[in-house]
Each structure stands twice: as structure tokens, then as C-alpha cells.
């Protein structure tokens, strides 16, 4: 578990991984988006607007996956006091928040021509908005805590508590009657015709790789900044 506690070891892997993830993510997401825009047939009911699915679903997945990452890092912070876990959680937060926001915006743009409304307070939409606010709260808390010290206990507890929202988002369309339709893709299979489905794995993998690349960039940024800070402090005491 503490194999990566040493930033030098982590960086040895993170440095090449950043570039690879970035390249892979760009290729896959651009291919998938082109396929979703130009190659798949329109939907029998919605027409062209169903193409938005191929970006809306990855945004939702990464918005929720981001918080899962924060929760796992928070557990590593509290249980193992892993020094990189806090760095990872702080790096993930604004990226996950952006994708949660993109999920809400693309959903809104999709909802207007299909449902006839930009926004409705149904179970799915509301719980996703709550996730965005949780991210904003986490970012404020983590920033405030980092000023005081490297421990980050309060933010970690917040990260763990916030995970209850994820099953609520997921099951909202089953528990409550919602305007949002049910899940198209589950363990039992998919209710999307294969000729319309194929760009979805590409965009999902592609945006996930970009997510990973951005998180690695932000972690490397914080590690470099910490290094500079510590060295300056050492130089000040030596002088």
C-alpha cells in the first residue's frame, strides 16, 4: 500500500502515464464523438437529439466515478494515512465537479427538445445537482484545510459521507417515478440498438482516459509545488 508513498516512485509511473492517457483519450473521445454525430442513425422517436446520449452518459459516469475516487482516497487518508491520497482527492475534485456540471448541462440541452423542459425537480435530476454541490463543498473544505496542514481529516470524512449520494442517483429512477427514463444499460444488457450503441464505449473510455490524464497532471502540479515550498523553507532556515 505504501509502495507509492514515495512521490519519486509515483512520479516514475505518472510521468509517462500522463502522456499516454492524454493521447489515448483524445483519439478515443474524438473518434467516438465523430461516430455519434455522423455515423449512427437517428432515433425512431427522438430523431437527432438522441446523439447527445454518447456524451451525456460518459459525463454522468465520470461525475459519479470522480466521487468514488474521492471516497476511496479519503478512506486511504483515514485508515492508512497514505500521503498521496489527499493529493489525489484534491486533484480529482474539480475534474469530477466539471463532469457533473457537464452532465447537467448536456442533459438540460437534451431535455428541452425531447421532454419539453430545460429542468424539472425529479429524483434523478435533483440528486445529480446535489452531487455537484457536494463537489463544491468538498473543494471549499479541502482548500481551507490545506491552508492549515497536510492532514486533511475533515475533508476525508466529508468525502466518505458524500458517497451515500451515489446509490441515490443510481436508483432514483427505480425508486421514484421520475421524468428521467430508466437505465438503458444494465447487467441484463442494453436497450439501445447495437447500430446506435457502438460510439458509447469509445466516448466513455476516451473521456475516462482524459479524466485520468487531467488528474495526473493536477497531482504532479501539487507535488512539484510542495517540493518548491519545502526547498524554499529549507533554504530560509539554512541562511
Amino acid at each position, binding site marked *: 500500500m505504501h509502495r507509492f508513498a514515495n512521490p519519486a516512485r509515483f512520479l516514475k509511473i505518472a510521468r509517462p502515464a500522463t502522456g499516454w492517457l492524454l493521447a489515448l483519450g483524445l483519439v478515443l473521445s474524438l473518434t467516438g464523438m465523430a461516430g455519434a454525430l455522423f455515423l449512427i442513425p437517428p432515433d*425512431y422517436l427522438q430523431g437527432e437529439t438522441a446523439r447527445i446520449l454518447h456524451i451525456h452518459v460518459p459525463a454522468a459516469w465520470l461525475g459519479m466515478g470522480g466521487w468514488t475516487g474521492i471516497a476511496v482516497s479519503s478512506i486511504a487518508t483515514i485508515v492508512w494515512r497514505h500521503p498521496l491520497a489527499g493529493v489525489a482527492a484534491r486533484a480529482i475534485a474539480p475534474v469530477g465537479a466539471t463532469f457533473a456540471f457537464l452532465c447537467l448541462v448536456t442533459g438540460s440541452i437534451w431535455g428541452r427538445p425531447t421532454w*419539453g423542459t430545460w429542468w424539472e425537480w425529479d429524483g434523478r435530476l435533483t440528486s445529480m445537482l446535489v452531487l455537484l454541490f457536494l463537489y463544491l463543498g468538498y473543494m471549499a473544505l479541502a482548500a481551507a484545510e490545506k491552508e492549515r496542514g497536510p492532514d486533511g481529516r475533515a475533508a476525508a470524512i466529508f468525502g*466518505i459521507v458524500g458517497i451515500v449520494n451515489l446509490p441515490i442517483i443510481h436508483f432514483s429512477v427505480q425508486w421514484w*417515478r421520475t421524468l428521467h*427514463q430508466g437505465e*438503458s444499460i444494465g447487467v441484463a444488457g442494453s436497450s439501445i*440498438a447495437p447500430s446506435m450503441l457502438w460510439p458509447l464505449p469509445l466516448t466513455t473510455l476516451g473521456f475516462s482516459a482524459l479524466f485520468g490524464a487531467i488528474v495526473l497532471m493536477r497531482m504532479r502540479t501539487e507535488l512539484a509545488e510542495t517540493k518548491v515550498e519545502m526547498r524554499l523553507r529549507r533554504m530560509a532556515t539554512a541562511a
Partner: protein
Amino acid sequence: MKPAPKHQRLVLVILAVAALIGAALLAMWGLSDRAAYFRTPQDIAAGRAQVGEPIRLGGMVKQGSIVRQPDGVSIAFVVTDGPADVPVRYRGIVPDLFKEGGGVVAEGRLERGNTFVADTILAKHDERYMPPQMGNIQAERQTRKTVAQ
């Protein structure tokens, strides 16, 4: 031998997460009735809506029930969930996806005599996507099922 502190912390964290999720799920499940976004014709038939109370009514637009009024902006149709029907009146523009056999959510009030007067009409679609040539036959068969759930 005493367990290592990190194991104690791990067990504590797992217990806390489990308790938290359990409590939340229980609360959400309890809320399921009140957090429902719309009511169904069966709810109305069972008297679970007051006359004049602002509610949302959800269901399927009954086949052959849409009647356009002579004034050009008013329509009347029937929302059904299978066992129960509710007649609806509406003045305004409907979404593109609003059609017979499709899902619908109407916002408005129940009048005396159990007619629903809608201020807003939203279309509800299901989770299936398919190309046009696969046709509407298969689609409409299942819309009934999805909307009524």
C-alpha cells in the same frame, strides 16, 4: 495481541460507511411515495389527489384519444396507465414527442368530475433507442409498460 491501529480504523470506516448507506437507503425508500415526481391515473381513481391541488399526472396518451379543438390551440386527450383513465384538457404548444401511445407528464389541477386541466405538458420517453426502420410497433408495445411502472 492487540489489532494494529490501522486495522481498527479500517473496520470503523467500513462500519460507518455501511451504516450511512443503510440509513440513507432506508430514508429514501420511506420517501418513495412523497418523492414521486408524478401521480398515475390509478392514484387519481383511488382518490389520492384533491380537487384543485396542483399535481403532476403521468401515464400514456391513449390511442385515438387526442382531439384538437376548433380554436387551434386547445387539445383534449386521455392519460391512461392501463386499468385507469383520466381525461385531460390543455391550451398551448405540446412537445414534439407528445403523441398517441407515447409517455406524458401533465402539470396542472384536477377539476370536479375528475377532469385534469393541464398548464404544462412534458413528454416522457423510455430507455430504448433504435433506428427508425425498426419501427414504432415494437416501441408502443413497451411504452405502456415503462410509463405505468
